[in-house]
């Protein structure tokens, strides 16, 4: 047990190195964002884009990983898959919340309103609500809610193409998916750096959350073994 504990410890050199790399990437990305030229029509408010889009990407990535883990748990009985799914769902809720707050702040400046019930915004809200339902079911539903939550994760994954292609298939005022390719050179570098920094942050958070969840599962197993040993002794 001590060897396993040290492998998953948040104080391990590998984890601290990953944190340092993430911090460094964010310093570089924030510098690039600050140096990036201002967009002509929107001005400074366009800089929300550099954080908003990576958060949207992480919302979708989290949902995919959550669905993958849920498939492994539902059809293969993988406990690790279940733990990955729960950790990814929490991150999906976190980054989804960031998307749903930063987007309306940009919209207020660009469209004059915080919210429009149009396809991209509504499907993103739906995706976030499904992930939130997953996390709440896991938190308060007890052990029997694990399979139900896993099925919910699969429904959430079905919503991803709807979110991504909504601007193409429905009449939408949201900027299209090709907006990244239209960015100027100074803006494009800042965007990709920000996307990289956020993705590394997501990986570090997922590893940390997964380590806590795995340690918790091992602890429960050990407690059961210890209960049995204590009963035998008495």
């Amino acid at each position, binding site marked *: 047990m001590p060897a396993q504990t040290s492998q998953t410890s948040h104080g391990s050199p590998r984890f601290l190195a990953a944190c340092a790399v993430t911090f460094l990437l964010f310093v570089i990305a924030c510098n690039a964002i600050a140096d990036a030229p201002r967009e002509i029509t929107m001005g400074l408010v366009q800089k*929300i884009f550099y954080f908003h889009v990576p958060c949207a990407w992480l919302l979708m990535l989290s949902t995919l990983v959550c669905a993958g883990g849920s498939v492994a748990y539902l059809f293969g009985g993988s406990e690790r898959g279940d733990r990955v799914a729960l950790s990814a769902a929490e991150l999906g809720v976190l980054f989804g919340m*960031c998307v749903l707050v930063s987007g309306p702040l940009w919209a207020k400046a660009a469209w004059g309103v915080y919210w429009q019930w149009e396809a991209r915004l509504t499907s993103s809200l739906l995706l976030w609500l499904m992930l939130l339902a997953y996390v709440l079911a896991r938190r308060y539903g007890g052990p029997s809610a694990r399979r139900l939550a896993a099925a919910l994760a699969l429904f959430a994954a079905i919503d991803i193409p709807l979110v991504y292609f909504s601007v193409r298939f429905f009449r939408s005022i949201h900027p299209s998916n090709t907006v990244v390719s239209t960015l100027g050179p100074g803006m494009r570098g800042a965007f990709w750096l920000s996307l990289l920094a956020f993705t590394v942050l997501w990986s570090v958070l997922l590893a940390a959350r997964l380590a*806590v969840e795995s340690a918790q599962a091992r*602890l429960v197993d050990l407690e059961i073994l*210890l209960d049995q040993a204590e009963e035998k002794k008495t």
Partner: protein
Amino acid sequence: MKMVALAYGFIWLAVFGYVFLVGRRLGKLNGEMDELRRRIDRLKS
């Protein structure tokens, strides 16, 4: 400027809040580990 500051501020607050929550869970887990160690020691003696 206000909108940009609000957006960036919220995202950082949310991320740090999450890190704090994970840290708190880890602290709780360490407490449970200590309790388990005590039980093992009692069982040994």
